[in-house]
């Protein structure tokens, strides 16, 4: 039984596109979607609406940075400080390229940081690689929460500025 992918996204269009991208990657994993940080924590801790969900952690959490109630950084912080959760790979999925966000996320041991590309095909590619890597291939050893390998397109790097005339 494949572990589900937890997708935390408040923007309906981003959610729609992310789901479609995931669909196009042909992953068999179930995709659980929640709409804010609080719901995400409820799901992970099996509380509230998710008190009765089957036990087990998701294969990967795709986490938007800006979220209502509890933001992505706080969710990440909680996951990485909880003994039972910290082995879950967390991929920050965001529109923001702000350095401060990147730095904070990396300090909290995020596994990858994906700046949602403008180009949808690139987005599909990124999600596909992420999914392949963490949902299918990656079986982290107990206690490990970091991978030395990161999918190529998932690493946020400062992109060169487009040349002028």
């Amino acid at each position, binding site marked *: 039984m494949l572990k589900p992918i937890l997708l935390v996204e408040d*923007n309906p*269009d*981003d959610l729609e*596109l992310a789901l*479609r991208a995931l669909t196009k990657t042909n992953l068999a994993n179930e995709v659980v979607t929640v709409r804010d940080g609080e719901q995400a924590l409820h799901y992970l801790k099996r509380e509230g609406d998710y008190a009765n969900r089957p036990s087990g952690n998701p294969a990967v959490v795709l986490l938007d940075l*800006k979220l209502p109630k509890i933001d992505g950084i706080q969710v990440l912080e909680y996951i990485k400080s909880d003994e039972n959760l910290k082995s879950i790979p967390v991929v920050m999925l*965001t*529109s*923001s*390229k*702000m*350095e401060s966000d990147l730095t904070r996320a990396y300090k909290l041991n995020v596994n990858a940081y994906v700046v*949602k*590309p*403008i*180009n*949808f*095909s690139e*987005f599909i590619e990124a999600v596909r690689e992420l999914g392949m890597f963490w949902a299918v291939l990656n079986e982290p050893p107990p206690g490990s929460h970091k991978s030395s390998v990161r999918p190529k397109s998932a690493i946020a790097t*400062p*992109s*060169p*500025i*487009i*040349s*002028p*005339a």
Partner: protein
Amino acid sequence: MNSSENIPQADLSDCEREPIHIPGTIQPHGFLLAARGIDALISHTSENSRTLAGTGAAVLGRTWEQALGVSNARALRRALDDPSFTVNPLSLASGWSPSSDASPVTLIAHTRGGFIIVEGEYAVDDALHAGLEGHELPPLLARMGKTSSATELCVLAAEETRRLTAFDRVLIYQFDADWNGTVIAESRNDVLPAYLNHRFPAFDIPKQARDLYHINRLRLIASNDYQPVRLLAVSSELPPLDLTLSTLRGISPIHLEYMRNMGTGSSMSASIMRDGKLWGLLSCHGREPRNLSFATRSVCDLLAQILSMQLAAREQSDQLARQVQLRKVLTDLLAHMTDAVDFTTALDSSHMLELTGAHGSALVREGEIIRYGITPPDDAILKLRDWVGPRITGGLFQTNELPFVYPEIGDDASVAGGLLAISISPVEQCYILWFRAELVTTVLWSGEPHKLPSSGTDTLRMHPRKSFDTWKETVRGRSSPWLQAELEAAMIFRSAVVDIVLKQAAAKSHLLTEVQRMNKELEAFAYTVSHDLRAPFRHVRGYAELLQMDKSELLDDEGRFLLQKILKSTAYAGNLVDTLLSFSRMNLTPLNTEPVDLNDLVETARSHAMINAEARSIDWHIAPLPRVNGDANLLLLALQNLFENAVKYTSKRNHAVIEVSAVETNHECIVTIKDNGAGFDMKYADKLFGVFQRLHTSDQFTGLGIGLASVRRIIERHGGRVWAESRQDEYAVFHLSLPVISSKTSSHHA
């Protein structure tokens, strides 16, 4: 007992202590009576007294009525009710004779030390000389008012006094701060020698004599060769009579000897007072003995007082004129300063020197010195600043004899005899110093001033000096004194500068806060752009792509064409937002400057630029490059932009050549990137580095018009500059300069 034998002889150690106000004798041209009150009996008299009550000691123990007669005693009693009586000697009677065979006397009374003292002066017929009568006073005042200088005024007063008194020589004698006196005006006949411009040492008039001059404004010594007349007292228990205000007071034998040495047989002096202080003397000398009536002496006293007032008025108007003159300079200076960004730029030499009448000035701010006019050298100024800093009280320090209080000034004393210093900001170590050159003056001393007089053989016996021969002295190390108006100007200037400095500091800090606030707003804006504006573009693009992927068979050719347009436009918009964000972030992130090897940067930038041009054949000629100081990430971004440009604009060449080289000068390293691409029209070279400036249509070459603007911003933030040259369709050359580390750490020259 011969009274003259009892005259005390002062010795040297008593010089300053001689009790000249209680000499126990009087001059012989009159007699003296004293009693404790109008109803008391006569307690003191002079040996030569001659009254109704008898002569000499016979007068002691009598009543005032018995001694002076009823009418004189009544006049005395009336005078005692007058509150001004204690101050002014009062003329009681003129031409009174106690008996038909006695000479007529003028009775003058005053009180002192609880005693009523009445002096009877034998009548003097000086009516011939007492020419100043009531109607002559207004024209004299008018003439005094017309004099053009203080000196001229003093000369007039001296001449007028000589006319009134018929003395041989009248001097106006002015004290300096050390109580040396200088003759500033003189009127004389040929009987006595000239003393004009001569200086007399302070010990000629000891302190207790000056103190007496304060209280008793007029003294007469009718003859230097007189026989002193002893005072007799009714009881030996009585204290010696205080003759401070007496007109007949016996003169110190030292002074009489002094007069004899000087060749003067008689003298009179009136005090010239200024603001309650002894300013100088109106001093009259005659070769022969000379007595003057009380009336004539009173006129001389009046003249001295008029002179005092005239001098004061003149000095005040001079000060006022100077003040007005300085205000004008000050106003000019302040007007300049308030417009200036930094007040120091508004200061010019002529204003700075005129403000205080200085020869040189220096503005010292921490280690920086701005000099105006003639000043000591920089190192001397800094040392002086350190010395004077703690001595500045109330914002100002001044001296007109700097070499005496600060001997370290050494050889620079000639340009810094006087120093005026103000502190602007002790925190910033900001001071303004004004210098006045030393005034080398020749003083004509009347006799050698630094040698105390002594007779040589009998050292205990005090002798006044015998020589009044001119003795020349050159005085160094002093400047002319700073005038009150000049000190005031300096203080007003100081408060204005302090005000400006404080205001500028406040404005600076306000500006800084404002910039910080705006930067924060800009950051927030950039964040909004990155996160919120980017999202809708992504969504449009995402849905359009989905449409193209999954549903394109539902569209006809026209529909697919329109879809392509949507995709292209949203891609462009998205790129634009991304690029703008990067550009704005370039200002927000602080520079992380470190030594950077340009060779490494160029290689990385080159490989980045080639990612999308792997298929093309491009010749890269990269010369060895030096190390520079800079932010590696930002410099990489700049080089990447320039290289991508070069790659892009050579895309239509079969054989593209891109050359990179560097030249180092003493202070900068110039990196040059040349390509044989399309180039640009030099007409528009100035537009090249502006934001969103494009010189090609997007059909010719793609791009947003922001890359070169980024390059410029990056390089300018490094303190360098960028420029370019080109020939259209032949080549383009871009130059950028960067600060250099040092020639040793750089590797190779291009």
